[in-house]
Structure formats: structure tokens, C-alpha cells
């Protein structure tokens, strides 16, 4: 009954409307457009200048995920309220809305806001500060990663592959030493990262400010879990089932630090990005952590027990190597716009160096597997010494690979740009979007006559919308940075899929040049 009444009312108003009606406008919103909130808002509010019928309201995060709550918004006259039962984590968000006014006019739009961080993105990632703090920080980072991998890897090796009992005390001592070292390094690394985030030098490790910033960092809970895991590994637990399970859990927790930072997190939403990084770290630990225990096992006794151990490792090692390769290749594919970037961009070159080290490890592994190990186990004494040295070499190359991996964080991955030729008969117009994938894109517009002379319109605006993703249009004005060159720092292309862009150039008061382009963001 109520439904029928509201329908009749709507249709009646529709038919009765005439050209004298006022124009529906969004007067205000809460949170305000492009504002930054310290806390997550408890509700989203839209205030219109007259009663409206709400046709659509969506809340999205900066990777295009739909966060619209299940309970529908309430509309009272011109006030729309959408309760947010779950608090929004730190990040940037987009509200997309569509409303019908009583005179039948449809209005729509979208706006962004941020929780706990700046509403507009920070200026493009600067190169790491070339101050004295860089190399010590880098060394600490590499040391922490190496020790965590060795500690966790050694523990997992012993738990999964059950080396000979006589070897166990020595291995356990080594694990606990590594875990203690890793704990110290990881602890200092967390403090160093906090100091860096707060903009302070490494001396801030001694003050509260750096540590407070460290605790507030997005990946802090992962780093904390890592510390807990390393603590467990350092404890003198016994060999009971409970003891072994605790140590296994400790090893896995220790690897959590691999998910707290990394460029993969910039291109994949947090759960997926963290999972890939964790997977990569775990596989690397299983592979690298085995070298020292294997060397000790073989140095002590080259008999049947060690032979069986090597065979057990070969199966596990194969899986670990494959896992490292797959997760690494996935991240490379996501971060590099083109394969040629591997040798054409600075980031690609650093990645190529790491890949070279990993390939060397693979070559050594193959050498071991197919030639050295069978002969050494068959008893040839010369082979025995060679195997021991090769295992040490393998470990050294592995540590180099980890250092090169840490070096990847020295700069951002290369960006691909999408370029569009929007010229018409009168003007040459080029639009460039960077990085050309879903997320914030910087837009550069170059306008000139066909003979090359730049022209300066009175106003340049870009309007973006994605009907496919349910994102209503939003418009931004470009600022002039040079004759004929205009820039929008961040277009919110926050979803994959089809987008419609309209570039509007107001040449003079009476002349507007509109150029439309449709594009698809595949990642």
C-alpha cells in the first residue's frame, strides 16, 4: 500500500512538473569532499537543496572494492544518511551517488575523502633521501631479512625433514642464535622505519617519536607478529609435540615481516598483496634455510642417513624453488608494465640483478642434484670437499639475492602511460595518463594548433565516470604548468574496467571543445 502510494506520488509529481522548477543541487556532504578525517565517519550524509529520490549510493575504496553497507540509506526530504556499521580502516574512499529531483531531472556525482591520511595523494615518490641515514638503514634492512630467512628456514628444515638425532643439538643452537640475532635486527628495523616515516634520522631510535610513528605504520602488526615468532624460536623449547608445533608456528609468524612492506602492496589490495609476499618469503626461507643444515649433516657423516636426508630435501627443495619462481614472476608481471622494462628501467635492472643471482642458485642446485651429490654420497672423497664448498657458495649467492631483493625498495617500479590523441581539425590535443592502471592517475594535456603553436584555453577540465563500475561523474580542473600544457595531479580512476573521460577545453567565452575518450583499465 505504501509502495503503491509512493509510486503514484512519484509519477504524479513527474507528470505535474513544469519548466519553472528549481535545479536540484548537492549543497553539502559529510564527510566533506576531498576532506581528511582523523576517525572513520559513523555515517555518510548528503544534503540536497530540495527533496530527492535516491537512485544509487555507493561507497568504494581506492582499489575499486565495493564497501556499500547492506542496510539501505534513509532519505528524509533532501537529507540522505547512510549508516556505516563497520569502521573504515585508514585509506581513501569514493562516494558515488545518483538522485532524481521532483521535476524529473537526474543529478549525479562522486567525491572522495580520506581516513587517517591526506585526502589528496602525496607528491610522487621521491628518491630515498641521499643523507647518511640511507646506507645504514639499508644494511639493517638486509641483515634483518637475511637473519629471519635463515632462522625460520633452519627451523622449518629440521621440523619437516627430520635430520639425524645426533645433529639436532648443534642445529638447535644455531637456530636459537639466528633467532636472537634476527629479533634484534628486526626490532631495530621497525624503529628505523618509524624514524623514517616521522622524517627523523636514525638517531630517533633512541627517542619515543620514531617508535610512535613505527607503531602507527600500516604494517606494524605484521612486524609485531614477526617479533613474537622470533621470540618463540629463540626459546629453549623441548622436542615434544607441543614444542615442535610451537616452533613451527614461530617460524611462520617470523616470516610475517615479509608482508609489511613491498611494492606488490601498491598494486594488489592488502590481503592479496600480503599473501603473495608471505608466500614468496616462506618459499625463500625453505630454500635458503636448508643450506647450512645440509652442509653440517654432510660434514658430520656421509652415510646412508645423510643420503636419505638429501633425497627428502630434494623433493621439498623442488617445491620451494617452484614457489619462489611463481610468486616472483607474478609480482614482476604486476609491477612491470612491459617485459622490456627489465633492462630499460632502473627498477627493472635491479630486479634483473636479483633474478641473475637466483638463476645462479638454480644452476648450482642443478649441479648439486645431478652431478655432485650422487657422487659425493657414493663415497668419492674429493667430491665430498667440493660438495661442502658448493653448499657454502650456494648460501653466499642466496644471501646476495636477498640483499639485491632488499635493494628493490630503493625506488618505485616504472610507470606505463596511456596516451590518447584527441586532436580535431582545428587543434592538436594529446592526453597522457600515468601510471595507466586503476588507482590515482596523473593526467597531462597538451594543446596546440596543428602547426605546433601552443594555445591556452581559459579553462581545461577533465570529467571521469565509470558506468560499468557504478561510479558517477566527477570533474577536476587542470592547472597550467607551461604554455599549452595542463595537469591534473590525480584523477580518481579507482576501478578496473571501462571508463569514460571527457576533456573540456574552454577556448573562449563562447567556444567549448569537448573531446571524449573511452578506455579500459585492465589492472
Amino acid at each position, binding site marked *: 500500500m*505504501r*509502495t503503491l502510494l*509512493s*509510486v503514484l506520488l*512519484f*509519477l504524479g509529481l*513527474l507528470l505535474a*512538473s*513544469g*519548466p*519553472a*522548477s*528549481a*535545479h536540484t*543541487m548537492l549543497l553539502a556532504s559529510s564527510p566533506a569532499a576531498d576532506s581528511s578525517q582523523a576517525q572513520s565517519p559513523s555515517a555518510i550524509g548528503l544534503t540536497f*537543496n530540495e527533496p530527492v*529520490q535516491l*537512485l544509487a549510493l555507493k561507497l568504494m575504496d581506492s582499489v575499486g572494492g565495493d564497501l556499500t553497507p547492506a542496510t539501505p540509506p534513509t532519505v528524509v526530504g533532501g537529507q540522505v544518511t547512510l549508516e556505516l556499521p563497520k569502521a573504515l580502516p585508514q585509506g581513501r574512499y569514493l562516494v558515488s551517488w545518483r538522485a*532524481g529531483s521532483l*521535476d*524529473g*531531472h*537526474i543529478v549525479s556525482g562522486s567525491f572522495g575523502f580520506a581516513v587517517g591520511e591526506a585526502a589528496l595523494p602525496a607528491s610522487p615518490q621521491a628518491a630515498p633521501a641521499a643523507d647518511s641515514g640511507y646506507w645504514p638503514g639499508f644494511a639493517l634492512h638486509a641483515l634483518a631479512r637475511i637473519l629471519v630467512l635463515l632462522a625460520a628456514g633452519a627451523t622449518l628444515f629440521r621440523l619437516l625433514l627430520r635430520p639425524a638425532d645426533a645433529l639436532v643439538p648443534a642445529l638447535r643452537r644455531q637456530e636459537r642464535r639466528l633467532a636472537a640475532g634476527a629479533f634484534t635486527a628486526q626490532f631495530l628495523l621497525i624503529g628505523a622505519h618509524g624514524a623514517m616515516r616521522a622524517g627523523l634520522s636514525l638517531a630517533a631510535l633512541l627517542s619515543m617519536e620514531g617508535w610512535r610513528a613505527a607503531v602507527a605504520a600500516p604494517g606494524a602488526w605484521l612486524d609485531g607478529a614477526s617479533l613474537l615468532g622470533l621470540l618463540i624460536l629463540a626459546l629453549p623449547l623441548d622436542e615434544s609435540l607441543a614444542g615442535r608445533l610451537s616452533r613451527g608456528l614461530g617460524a611462520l609468524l617470523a616470516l610475517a615481516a615479509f608482508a609489511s612492506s613491498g611494492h606488490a602492496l601498491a598494486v594488489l589490495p592488502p590481503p592479496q598483496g600480503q599473501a603473495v609476499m608471505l608466500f614468496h618469503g616462506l618459499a625463500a626461507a625453505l630454500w635458503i634455510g636448508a643450506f647450512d643444515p645440509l652442509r653440517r649433516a654432510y660434514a658430520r657423516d656421509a652415510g646412508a642417513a645423510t643420503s636419505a636426508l638429501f633425497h627428502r630435501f630434494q623433493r621439498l627443495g623442488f617445491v620451494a624453488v617452484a614457489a619462489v619462481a611463481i610468486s616472483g614472476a607474478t609480482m614482476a608481471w604486476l609491477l612491470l608494465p612491459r617485459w622490456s622494462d627489465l633492462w630499460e628501467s632502473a627498477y627493472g635492472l635491479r630486479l634483473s640483478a636479483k633474478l641473475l643471482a637466483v638463476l645462479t642458485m638454480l644452476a648450482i642446485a642443478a649441479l648439486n642434484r645431478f652431478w655432485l651429490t650422487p657422487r659425493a654420497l657414493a663415497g668419492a672423497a674429493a667430491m665430498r670437499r667440493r660438495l661442502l664448498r658448493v653448499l657454502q657458495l650456494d648460501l653466499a649467492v642466496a644471501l646476495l639475492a636477498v640483499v639485491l631483493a632488499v635493494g628493490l625498495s630503493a625506488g618505485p617500479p616504472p610507470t606505463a602511460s596511456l596516451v590518447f590523441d584527441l586532436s580535431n581539425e582545428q587543434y592538436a590535443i594529446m592526453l597522457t595518463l600515468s601510471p595507466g592502471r586503476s588507482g590515482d592517475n596523473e593526467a597531462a594535456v597538451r594543446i596546440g594548433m596543428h602547426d605546433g603553436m601552443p594555445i591556452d584555453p581559459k579553462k581545461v577540465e577533465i*570529467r571521469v565516470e565509470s558506468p560499468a563500475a557504478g561510479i558517477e561523474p566527477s570533474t577536476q580542473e587542470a592547472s597550467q604548468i607551461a604554455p599549452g600544457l595542463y595537469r591534473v595531479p590525480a584523477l580518481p580512476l579507482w576501478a578496473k574496467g571501462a571508463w569514460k573521460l571527457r576533456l*573540456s577545453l*574552454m577556448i573562449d*567565452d*563562447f*567556444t*567549448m571543445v*569537448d573531446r*571524449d575518450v573511452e578506455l579500459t583499465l585492465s589492472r
Partner: protein
Amino acid sequence: MRVSQLAAAAFLAVGAAVAMTVPAFAHITFENPEAPSNGFYKAVLRVPHGCDGDATTAVRIQIPEGFIVAQPMPKSGWQVSVTEGAYAKSYKYEGSTISKGVKEIAWTGGNLPDSFYDEFVFRVRVTDIAPGTKVYFPVVQECGSKTEHWIEIPAEGKSDDDYEHPAPGVTIGAPGGDD
């Protein structure tokens, strides 16, 4: 979703679809959408609202090529002025050749509140333009310090609804209207 909610949503969707086919009441448009080829056209420019809530204080319209001897109708409370310029080509009219005339008309100094409606009238002669052609008159609406530019001309295959500030347009019709 319950059935009644589903039904409401469906009706709402249908209502919205119907609403979208209704002319956009908020745009500046001509009352008579058709102008006769080789004849006189009384252009009534309808201004249904101001700029974002502010009162309209000036309306300027540019006369496109092919329309000659434009004459604005005076308006009480507003100052009318015309700007002359050269036409792109010469036209024969009443035995003489005309190559320049009114290219821009401006009504200034008025005050039309946002919630009120008014019309701005001028008369113009349509030259020999093929019937069926759609021609646009760019309009600048000033509200104090704010300005709205109704100057977007729909591209091939697009309509007024695809634009936020389309210029008012007329379709040229069959010859006639010589008076």
C-alpha cells in the same frame, strides 16, 4: 529483498527511465525548437534558474553563421546591447548584399532570482540553411561573479543529455515565415 521493496525499486527504475526522456528542465533552451529556412524566427530564450543558487545578472548570446539581421527585444530592468561583426560570407536580403551585422546580443544589469523564470527574446532571419540541420547558439549566463557557459555542442551521434551545459539549439525546418 522483500517483494514490495523489489516492486518499489522497479517502479523507481521505470520512473527514472521515463524521467530521463523528459526534456532537461534545468537547461537554457529555446521555446520554439524549429526555425524556418529562409524566414524569420522569433527566438525566445528560456532561463529557468541562476548559477548554483545565485541570481542571473547578465545573459549574452552569440549569433552563429547563417543568421542575419538579429534584433533583440528590449527588456524592462535590463540594459540591452549588441556587438556587430563581419559575417563569414555575404547574404542577399531585400535587394541588398549584407556582409556584416549583429554577432552578439547582451542583456545586462538585471536581477533574475534563482527560483524565478524569465525569457529573453530576439528576432533573427534564417538564411538558406538546409532543413533538418541543427544549429546551436552559445549562451553565457552571468550571476554576479559566477558564470555558466552554455556552450557545449553535441558531437556526432550524441544528444544534449550527454552534456552538462549544452548550448541551446534550433532545428531548421521547411522554408516559410517571411513576415
